[in-house]
């Protein structure tokens, strides 16, 4: 008689013996991850049709893959979006090798991996009047929660009908929420993370514009850092061109 569980156990053993070690910038240490499976790869393929601004399905798919495959389950809530970049770059190297082909020549993934390893802690505190905010690089768990609760059903139903400008407005507020670790009013924490994504947005929308702008400056720093990390040199016939890697479904599974 067939024993499917027996086969799955053997494959699980195989996965546990073929661990991918990834340097996690925020933790400053290497963490083991199991290889991406066929089912997870399918999840990435399915994310090919996505919300262009928020990349909802891609964020959800990669979060689920990372948390399923991470050998240290207690750190998954601490991983941030830059750590995710490090993990996805490592997976890309395993699946398709280090070289990336582009119209400007070949580039290497390792160039981005090395830049990520040098990133320092970016957390800081900003304040205005009697309000103080701790800000940090968004955690992937927060990002997942926002996309899953706010947009996922609409994306699945293909009913995400907002125009680009409206979507950018939502993104700005959404990104602000994800960067906020805690808000203190007259030195008392409000326990910001306990609120639902919709409630967090409502709270952020009531903050003074000066504070929002300061968070906006942090988001800009993050955005520039992200671009800097993903900018690699492609070389073709002795001509070097800087290209920016786009970390999406196509990058990971080469559709």
């Amino acid at each position, binding site marked *: 008689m067939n024993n*499917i569980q027996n086969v799955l156990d053997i494959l699980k053993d195989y996965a546990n013996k*073929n661990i991918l070690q990834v340097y996690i910038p925020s933790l400053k240490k290497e963490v083991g991850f199991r290889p991406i499976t066929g089912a997870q790869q399918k999840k990435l393929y399915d994310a090919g049709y996505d919300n262009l601004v928020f990349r909802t399905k891609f964020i959800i798919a990669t979060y689920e893959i990372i948390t399923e495959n991470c050998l240290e389950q207690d750190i998954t809530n601490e991983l941030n979006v830059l750590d995710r970049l490090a993990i996805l770059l490592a997976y890309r190297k395993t699946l398709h090798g280090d070289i990336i082909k582009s119209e400007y020549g070949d580039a290497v993934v390792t160039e981005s991996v090395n830049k990520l390893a040098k990133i320092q802690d970016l957390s800081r505190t900003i304040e205005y009047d009697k309000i103080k905010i701790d800000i940090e690089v968004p955690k992937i768990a927060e990002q997942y929660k926002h996309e899953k609760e706010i947009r996922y059903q609409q994306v699945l139903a293909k009913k995400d009908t907002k125009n680009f400008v409206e979507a950018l407005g939502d993104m700005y507020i959404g990104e602000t929420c994800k960067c906020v670790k805690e808000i203190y009013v007259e030195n008392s924490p409000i326990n910001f993370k306990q609120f639902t994504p919709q409630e967090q947005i409502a709270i952020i929308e009531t903050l003074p514009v000066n504070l929002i702008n300061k968070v906006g400056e942090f988001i800009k720093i993050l955005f520039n850092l992200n671009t800097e990390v993903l900018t690699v040199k492609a070389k073709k016939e002795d001509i070097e061109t800087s290209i920016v890697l786009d970390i999406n479904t196509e990058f990971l599974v080469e559709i």
Partner: protein
Amino acid sequence: MFKLKVYLPSQKKFIYVKELNYKTYRGLVKSLYVGDRLKTIELFNFILQEIVEVKELENLTIIDKLAIFLTIREVCVSPDLNLKCTCPDTNAEFNYQTAISDIQKTLDELITDVTVKTDNLITKHSLFTDIKDETILLTENNPDDFRTGITEIIAEKVINLDNYKFSEKKIIIENLPASHLLQARLQIAQAKKYNSEKNLIKIVSPHTDKTIYKITGNIDSTTLSELLEYLFVEELNNIYKAMYNVVTHCKFSAEYVDSITPAEIQVYWNYFLEESKKNNTTKNNPKTEHNAEFGF
């Protein structure tokens, strides 16, 4: 009982199969007129159950099925395939003829499986669907599903997956490492490309020199059914005329005629024609004229 020897390309072995008798042949030709692809698959698989021993039916792939029916067609019906074609550019009709043995030769040149190796993991994949999964895949509208083809995993232990169900194989594939699956897809694509360059049937219009139809070695359930239909399609009138003639003129019982092959009926009919020709010559009486060919 006389049996035919057939080489199964997927399993790389010979088996013996029963002949196709006239009763089954007549039923087959009649059923092909219905034109339902799923019914056609079921019909040929039903005939397989009649002519192949039960233990040999296990793990039979669609390419093995084709090999069996090619042998059946060659020995029990006729060694040549004749098709009436119409040139799409000129509307002119022409005849296409090929030897069944030529199709068999091409079949034997096809790649039937690939072995994929990555870090301490080996999987074996058949390029051709198992006949028990044929109708499932066709119902899912996916006649070429890569997931059904996995036949073996070697990861410390050797696990043979031949008897696993389609749904179980799907789960196993989902749990294999994606990097291994990518390698498998690559190798399978290369093998399929090689097979697609081999033509089982290629019809070139003599009027324009253009290829108007071909079936390559990269066959799936749909193309296999198409090819089987071409192999066994026949004018129904010929089928009944043959039965009528041998029963009426050769004085055979209908039961006996039903138990022999169409090719044997043709042989008897030729004997009868020779004899009646001799009798007519002797008696100098040319009044009786019969057709030498039934058509198959």
